[in-house]
């Protein structure tokens, strides 16, 4: 039982972090907070993948003398691409927020819906 908890606790904490980010996205109306919540979600997904690829008594996957076991490099490659794509979407999202503010005068979701419905 104790080994089961020791072997799985960080997956559970990562799931809790994912849900925290998800909750911020769907329940708060401020657009900047939504982008922050989305980024929390993304980072916790990366943590999940890197935890899957970790090997006990392993080291960074750079071949050097004296090391036998290496961590899984495939997960690292996947997450590197994902981090860069994440920053690209964040930058575009923030640029859209700036334009929304100029067009509607507010970045709260309720005000934007009000202005859209009253057209």
């Amino acid at each position, binding site marked *: 039982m104790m080994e089961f908890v020791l072997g799985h606790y960080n997956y559970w904490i990562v799931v809790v972090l994912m849900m925290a980010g998800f*909750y911020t996205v769907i329940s708060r109306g401020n657009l900047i907070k939504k982008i922050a919540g989305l980024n929390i979600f993304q980072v916790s997904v990366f943590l999940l993948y890197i935890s899957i690829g970790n090997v006990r008594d392993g080291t960074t996957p750079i071949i050097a003398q004296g090391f036998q076991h290496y961590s899984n490099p495939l997960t690292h490659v996947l997450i590197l691409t994902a981090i860069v794509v994440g920053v690209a979407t964040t930058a*575009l999202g923030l640029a859209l927020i700036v334009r929304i503010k100029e067009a509607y005068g507010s970045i709260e979701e309720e005000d934007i819906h009000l202005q859209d419905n009253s057209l």
Partner: protein
Amino acid sequence: MIDLLIIITLLAFLLVTAIAIIRIHSLFAIVMLFGIFSLLSAGLFVVMDAADVAFTEAAVGAGISTVLMLGTLALTRQHEEKHNGKHRPILPLLVVLVTGAALIYGTLDIPAFGDPDAPAQQHVVPRYLDKAVDETGVPNIVTAVLASYRGFDTLGEVTVIFTAGIGVFLLLAGRRTRHSEKENAS
């Protein structure tokens, strides 16, 4: 043993920061907490032996993302999230609890953390670890896989970054349109 303690402490700090981001209303504090979150996760990546990933996450998450969010705050000039006291988010809480329970039920079957015989470490990975230095001459396996074995994915990634740069340039670097000029005049 010391690894375990460090991981538990960093994860606890991450949880506290995430909950603070949900509850705090000042947008400037949220952006700063977001930078702290990125840096803590970069520290966690280092403890889990992912040096390249930690490098990228620290530079990109705690660097570029925080700077861009501060720039957005400066351009939209809003400092507080608007909140009325009678906010009762029952439905989002329910959705989050159901999704979280389903995900935790899914993680019960995952092999233990750090298991060298897990399915994720079989099939292709031993071949890359054995043959990469002979076939490409590059000791850093992550760079070898990223640039040589999986070069197409990196091509797509560079194109995505390029497209995002063009998109932001088109959205923000032009002159303000007649729309807002009319509003400013009236």
